[in-house]
C-alpha cells in the first residue's frame, strides 16, 4: 500500500510518500503507527506523540482503530489548519 505524509510528519520522515508492505499482524492505523515507529529514528520522531497524528484511508478521515486491510492509500498528518 501507499503511504503519504503531510506537513511536519512529512518533514520528519523526510519523504512525501512511499510504498510499504506491513506484516500480517498490523491490522489497524494504531498498529501501523507502532510498526512504522520501529523502522527508524525519523519515524519514531514523526510519531512520537500518536495523539496528535491524524490519518486518512483512501482519502477519508479515520480514527486510529480503523482497520487498514484493503487500503490502497493511507495518509498521516498533523491536525488540520486550513481555512
Amino acid at each position, binding site marked *: 500500500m501507499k503511504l503519504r505524509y503531510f506537513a511536519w510528519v512529512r518533514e520528519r520522515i523526510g519523504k512525501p510518500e512511499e510504498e510499504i508492505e506491513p506484516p500480517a499482524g498490523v491490522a489497524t492505523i494504531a498498529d501501523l503507527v507502532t510498526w512504522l515507529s520501529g523502522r527508524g529514528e525519523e519515524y519514531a520522531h514523526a510519531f512520537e506523540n500518536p495523539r496528535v497524528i491524524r490519518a*486518512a484511508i483512501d*482519502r477519508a478521515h479515520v480514527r486510529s482503530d480503523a482497520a487498514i486491510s484493503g487500503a490502497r492509500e493511507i495518509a498521516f*498528518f498533523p491536525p*488540520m*489548519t486550513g481555512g
Partner: protein
Amino acid sequence: MAATVRLQREPFDAASEAEKLRRGRSDIGAVVTFTGICRGDEADAPLVAMTLEHYPDMADAEIARHVAAAERRWPLLGVAVIHRYGRIQPGEDIVLVVTAAAHRQDAFAAAEFLMDYLKTRAPFWKQIELAGGGGTDKIWVEAKRSDDALADRWAPSSGRRAAE
C-alpha cells in the same frame, strides 16, 4: 443546486463568484461572502509569508462532502468554496466561502458551518515564515482548541441556537 468547489494556487475574485451564484435568479434573498485573509503578524511577530500545503484529491472530495452536508441542513440556493494553496503573502486572500439562500439565517449558518469545517477538517496545513534574528523561522501553525469548539457547535447532539 449548483455548487462550486475549487482548490487553486492563484488568487480568486470574491465578487465574481458571488455574482455567478445570483445571476439571472430572483429567488435569492441573501448572499453571505466570507473571505479569509493572510494577516501580517502571528502572536505579534511579523509574518513574511504563509505556505499552505494540502492533500490534493482528498481536499476536493472532503470539501464537496461538507458542501453537500450544508445543502442537506439548510435550504441553500448556491454555494461556492475556493481554497488556495502554495505561498501566500500578508494581505492576500486564502479562502472564500459564498452561500446564497432565500433567508439570511440559512446563508449565515451555512457559511459559518463551512468555515468551521475548513478550519478543522479540511486537509490543509499552514506553515508561516516569521522574520527572525538572522533570517526567517518556518513554523507549522498549531491547530487551535477554539476552532475545534466552534466546529463542535454543528455536531448533531449540540443544539446551536434557538433560531435553527
